[in-house]
């Protein structure tokens, strides 16, 4: 089949996206694609010009498709070439570089231009803007401003709309004194109501932008170079730089001259066709069902729809208009607007919260129990949810305040629907939103199947909540609840309490007996380590240890590394060591040629890169106990100097830390436990972000924190109790540990556990003994302490054949039969 020629006029956001979409539909096989772009570049992200002006991004970094991309994809780009005329009868276009190009299909994507008001003395005799006066639309505008700003002192932005304020931010960052002159009573009057405008105004003023409201500019002052502005009311302001940002005007002239129907924009139908056959239009130059748009979201939808229509002639896809919402940072202020800004019907319900002193304003317009409009200033945390409810037209909870406030501690959700497809969701496995969504669409509609199929969420796990939201978003009502998320381990279909009960009742003391009795004999390898940990907690000394149920680290008591070697971290109680100990470590490092000796984040020393078969000898020579830097257990207790040496210390943190570590070393737990003791509230041991943290306070007291975290998640711990003695610290610590061992899911860190249980509830149970179990907890943790054996003792008597062998050799070659 002969290829048709598709000509696209305009290489901006819409035009270039259309090309991408068409290529994604394999349209390159159907069409010779020819693009004319007036700007002499590939395609860049216009939105990011604000960042370029503000200096937070380099102009080189905003290119989406460089010139080479077009070549690679077989797209002919006439960059720097303007189309001057279209002949719809002959079906060809005439470009400024002399090209005459016939088309089978034509798409107009000429965008819009800054609407420049008629100001006296605006132009030079050559019809150029006066020196020092700028519009803000293209990368060249941006470069021009940046060059000029280096020698300018005071700038006035004409127009206090979104773009004007972005320009103001940019220039403020460049060190200029910045003023904004605006005709209306408040800034961003298109998007904001009066109160919102007021709040934003005071935030802007606090940042140093001077606002001049209700000022209509009518003249540029200065001769050969801008020296000021004149206003209609006769007043003036002096300045040496001006940015005009008074709106946009769709670029319709080209179409109009070709006899294509236009009003404010080029008129398009729901199939994006114009009034002339084989001509289409998308982007800011269009007018669809009476609307013109000035944001990118609608044009993504338009490009998608048109690409499908052009590549699939029988496609019925229609563009039905967009509901726009905007989420941005104007001068560092979080701002989101969607839908109506004022009530329209009498029945509209308006919910408002305003706190001018902090620059916070939130307003909801509710119609038929759905969001008809919202304005949120100064609090980005609630925006994602609102946007989602708005986009999906979802019914609202009865309590409107839930919508306007985020409970403290709640982790911030991002609006997954809003994210572009190529956003990387899982940073460990490099899984994008697009991949997750398409996987859900292909049928993986439970969290587990989705994670298994994409590997998203299977690394550090910090993206899990986003994966969940994406699943909900993509699966909608078809979401499948996965019963296994309630199981303690995936391979045994029981919750933790039910599992514990069955284990106790049937006296199951080994992992294989659990599989046999409770999982039909199927030994799920992914469940072994979790079961081993639980059995150890339940049976203590009476646990029947099966080595194959352990993860390799727990078989050889060291942490496996990416090349199959291991790291050895001897215990250094409380992070305190001695010259003798250090010397021994140094000797071992030398003798075994340990590739790296590293001080860890846990206040001890790591011998990194030890071969498996050297482990026993290394431990032997070290003569120190294992630091347990590998297993799901008590790890370390960091300490600071404390009262012994520090001039601020009010408690002996090192002594307590050493006692803590000596007492609880090696205790198995559902996930690792990292502790710290600080000698005063300066908190040098970072106790507040530990699983259990202790801080000495004035009066000989100690605060005990639980559920802190500073790993993949960050959470400040909650105070469990304040006690008077080191003994009590050890007591409550142990009690909490035992309760965590019994109640937490496998691999649930304390921060998740404490949050799930609630600190109030934990206090009742562990301090007030509301369940009458404290004595038992204290007893059980004591037995666990008593049954501890240092695993490095196995250096002398290996537990399994060839436990530490790197490789084994065959015995002989068998003679052929």
């Amino acid at each position: 089949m002969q290829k048709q020629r598709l000509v696209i006029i305009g290489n901006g956001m819409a035009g270039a996206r259309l090309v991408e979409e068409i290529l994604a539909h394999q349209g390159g096989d159907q069409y010779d694609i020819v693009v004319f772009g007036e700007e002499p570049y590939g395609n860049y992200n216009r939105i990011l010009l604000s960042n370029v002006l503000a200096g937070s991004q380099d102009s080189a970094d905003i290119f989406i498709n460089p010139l080479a991309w077009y070549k690679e994809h077989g797209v002919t780009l006439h960059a720097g070439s303007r189309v001057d005329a279209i002949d719809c009868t002959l079906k060809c276009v005439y470009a400024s570089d002399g090209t005459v190009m016939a088309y089978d299909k034509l798409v107009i994507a000429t965008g819009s231009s800054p609407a420049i008001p008629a100001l006296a003395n605006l132009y030079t005799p050559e019809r150029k803007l006066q020196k020092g006066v700028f519009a803000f639309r293209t990368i060249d505008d941006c470069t021009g401003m940046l060059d000029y700003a280096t020698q300018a002192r005071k700038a006035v932005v004409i127009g206090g709309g979104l773009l004007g304020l972005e320009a103001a931010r940019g220039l403020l960052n460049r060190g200029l004194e910045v003023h904004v002159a605006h005709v209306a009573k408040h800034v961003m009057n298109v998007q904001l109501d009066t109160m919102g405008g007021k709040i934003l105004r005071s935030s802007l003023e606090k940042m140093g932008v001077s606002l001049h409201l209700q000022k209509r500019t009518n003249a540029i002052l200065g001769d050969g170079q801008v020296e000021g502005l004149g206003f209609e009311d006769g007043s003036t302001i002096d300045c040496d730089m001006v940015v005009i940002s008074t709106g946009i005007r769709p670029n319709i002239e080209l179409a109009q001259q070709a006899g294509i129907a236009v009003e404010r924009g080029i008129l398009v139908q729901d199939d994006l066709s114009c009034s002339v056959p084989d001509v289409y239009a998308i982007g800011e130059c269009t007018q669809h069902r009476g609307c013109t748009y000035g944001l990118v979201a609608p044009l993504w939808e338009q490009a998608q729809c048109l690409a499908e229509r052009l590549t699939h002639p029988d496609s019925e896809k229609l563009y039905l208009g967009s509901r726009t919402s905007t989420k941005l940072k104007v001068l560092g202020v979080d701002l989101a607007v969607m839908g109506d800004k004022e009530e329209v019907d009498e029945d509209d319900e308006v919910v408002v919260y305003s706190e001018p002193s902090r620059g916070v304003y939130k307003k909801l317009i509710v119609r038929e129990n759905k969001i008809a409009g919202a304005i949120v200033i100064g609090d980005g945390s609630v925006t994602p949810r609102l946007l989602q409810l708005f986009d999906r037209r979802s019914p609202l909870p009865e309590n409107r305040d839930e919508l306007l406030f985020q409970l403290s501690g709640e982790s911030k959700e991002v609006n997954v629907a809003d994210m572009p497809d190529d956003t990387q969701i899982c940073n460990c496995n490099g899984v994008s939103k697009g991949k997750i969504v398409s996987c859900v669409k292909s049928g993986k509609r439970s969290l587990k199947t989705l994670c298994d199929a994409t590997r998203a969420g299977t690394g550090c796990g910090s993206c899990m909540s986003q994966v969940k939201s994406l699943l909900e978003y993509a699966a909608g009502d078809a979401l499948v609840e996965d019963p296994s998320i309630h199981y303690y381990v995936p391979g045994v279909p029981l919750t933790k309490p039910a599992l514990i009960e069955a284990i106790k009742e049937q006296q199951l003391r080994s992992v294989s007996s659990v599989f046999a009795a409770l999982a039909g004999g199927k030994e799920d390898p992914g469940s072994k380590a979790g079961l081993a940990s639980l059995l150890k907690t339940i049976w203590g000394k009476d646990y029947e240890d099966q080595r194959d149920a352990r993860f390799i680290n727990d078989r050889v008591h060291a942490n496996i590394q990416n090349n199959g070697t291991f790291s050895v971290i001897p215990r250094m109680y409380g992070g305190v060591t001695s010259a003798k100990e250090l010397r021994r470590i140094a000797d071992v490092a030398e003798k075994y040629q340990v590739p790296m000796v590293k001080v860890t984040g846990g206040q001890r020393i790591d011998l990194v890169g030890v071969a498996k078969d050297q482990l026993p000898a290394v431990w032997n020579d070290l003569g120190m106990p294992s630091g347990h830097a590998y297993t799901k257990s008590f790890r370390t207790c960091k300490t600071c100097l404390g009262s012994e040496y520090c001039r601020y210390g009010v408690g002996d943190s090192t002594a307590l830390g050493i006692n803590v570590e000596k007492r609880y070393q090696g205790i198995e737990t559902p996930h690792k436990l990292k502790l710290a003791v600080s000698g005063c509230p300066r908190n040098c041991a970072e106790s507040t972000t530990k699983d259990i943290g202790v801080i000495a306070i004035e009066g000989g007291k100690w605060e005990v924190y639980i559920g802190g975290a500073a790993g993949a998640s960050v959470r400040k711990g909650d105070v469990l109790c304040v006690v008077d003695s080191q003994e009590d610290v050890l007591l409550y610590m142990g009690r909490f540990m035992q309760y965590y061992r019994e109640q937490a899911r496998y691999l649930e860190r304390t921060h998740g556990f404490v949050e799930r249980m609630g600190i109030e509830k934990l206090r009742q149970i562990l301090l007030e003994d509301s369940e009458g179990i404290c004595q038992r907890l204290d007893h059980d943790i004591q037995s666990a302490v008593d049954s501890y054996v240092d695993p490095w003792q196995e250096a002398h008597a290996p537990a399994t054949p060839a436990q530490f062998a790197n490789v084994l050799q065959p015995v002989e070659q068998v003679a052929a039969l």
Partner: protein
Amino acid sequence: MSMILKTGQVTYNLGPLARLPHGEGRTFQIGTHSIAVFRTRNDELYATQAACPHKGGPLADGLVGDGKVVCPLHSYKFQLATGASIGNTCAALETYPITLSPDGDILLSLDA
């Protein structure tokens, strides 16, 4: 029980079954071949290539059960009998014929 040898294959005696602990694997070095040999809890034997196709993790150090091995480095799963990858896009593992001799020795065959 004896093993039918295809021509062009060489068989090695890896020693008595007791050389391998229940439910674990060990890496054998046979000439230039590194081979992971597994003994399940019910005494089935499997042999696969030693290095995980993902990033070279030592498969013999992995957790074994239900006919699968889980690589210790990033938890990719593979079927022991066929070497097929489970839930990941890695190529299948090489697998090798392995059996127990009448005397209780582990016999492994390789292409010569």
